[in-house]
């Protein structure tokens, strides 16, 4: 198997690369259609804004390439942080803009009331639904979050786990062969390694 970290030139692709390498998998960072084509698993890491991520996916012609691999060929796909958020229909960071619309929903600012924003730090998850991505993971597992915007899914069936910060929001989503993590597995020490391994075992 070969894992391709999709290089939209946005975010911490190096950290994700280092972790997968550390877990002894064959991995490359690339945006070429050939590499994406050959890969068995696709990962889209992301830091930064929704609009920037979408504009880069378009700029590098990745929307069509990925749609073909993920929606037609059904390759396991994982979006991390903003990489998960762009799976939605629309994002409302700065202004309304269209996403990939692979999982129906919108991305909007977290409603935290008096709590501080961004949501930075370790938080546990609340499991909503059984899923093979959760092997060896329980509700006491803490993951590292770094964000102000959240995915509000229109398809509640796609919500595997939620996290609470001012309100509950989806932190793991899944629809068919598509997964999304709002937290950063590559920065979440042991629980992060476990959950990423579960994805690579798919």
């Amino acid at each position, binding site marked *: 198997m070969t894992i391709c970290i999709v290089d939209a030139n946005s975010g911490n692709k190096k950290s994700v690369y280092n972790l997968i390498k*550390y877990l002894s998998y064959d991995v490359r960072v690339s945006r070429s259609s050939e590499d994406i084509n050959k890969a068995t698993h696709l990962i889209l890491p992301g830091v930064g804004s929704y609009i920037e991520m979408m504009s880069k996916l378009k700029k590098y012609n990745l929307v069509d390439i990925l749609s073909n691999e993920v929606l037609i060929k059904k390759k396991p796909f994982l979006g991390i942080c903003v990489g998960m958020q762009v799976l939605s229909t629309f994002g409302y960071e700065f202004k309304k803009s269209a996403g990939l619309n692979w999982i129906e929903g919108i991305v909007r600012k977290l409603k935290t009331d008096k709590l501080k924003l961004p949501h*930075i730090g*370790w938080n546990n998850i609340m499991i909503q639904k059984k899923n093979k991505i959760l092997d060896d993971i329980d509700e006491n597992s803490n993951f590292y979050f*770094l964000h*102000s915007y959240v995915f509000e899914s229109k398809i509640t069936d796609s919500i595997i786990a939620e996290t609470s910060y001012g309100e509950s929001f989806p932190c793991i989503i899944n629809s068919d062969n598509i997964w999304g993590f709002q937290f950063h597995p590559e*920065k979440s020490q*042991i629980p992060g390694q476990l959950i990423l391994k579960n994805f690579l075992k798919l």
Partner: protein
Amino acid sequence: MKKRRLIPIILLKDGAIVQSRNFRDFNILGDPLPSVKRFSEWASDELIFLDISRDEEVKINRTDLNFQKRVSLSDVLEDVSKFCFMPITVGGKIDNLEKIEEYLAKGADKVAINTFLNSNYKFIEKSSKKFGSQCIVNSIDVKIIDGAYKIFTHNGSKILSYNLGEWLKISESSGSGEILINSIDRDGAGNGFDIDLINFVDNCVKIPVICCGGAGSYEDFLEVATKTTVDGIAAANFFQYKEHSVFLTRKLLYEKNLNFREPVLLSI
């Protein structure tokens, strides 16, 4: 529930780990990698690397220390991110967007931008627009002069004209995602955190605050965690010198129900 954070700070000078006192005296301790390894094994919540190298100094090739010489923060980051799978913030003389891009590409999650000019908020604004507020930490060094908190710049040698409250508002509205507040008076003194300062800063802004300066004992951590609601508690020397100190501090704060992650010894 989101946990509060315990954060070791690693001070680097020309790629070597150092100990600092009042921003003036430095002891060179050596290769940073074993420390980082220890810190990640003891389940720190994050690591902050602060580069305090000064341009004007001649770089001496130290033959007395037997470690692989890394001269820049970038070199250290490159090595560290291969085995350290936890959040990393880097800081020290970050004054252009290219530098931020370089650090983020090498595995950093956040950068600490020091307040070094009255006009510095413009740089914070530019960086947060490009990289997002979540990765911009404004690091502020404070010293008490005539009973008032003054912001010091240039490694503690110049004073900013804004007062602390004014600057915090400017910093927050310019797009800082976090404040790292450091007390120069307490730096390396080990006589406890400046509780008044930390509460003042924490109440002033709606973004998370990390405090540092003054940790000398486990009780100091207990005090700051109890008397403030600060999100992150950081220390450099304390964690560097005391065996298993991150683990033991975490254990204490966890057992007192102060909302920290459970202590686990990780074998990474």
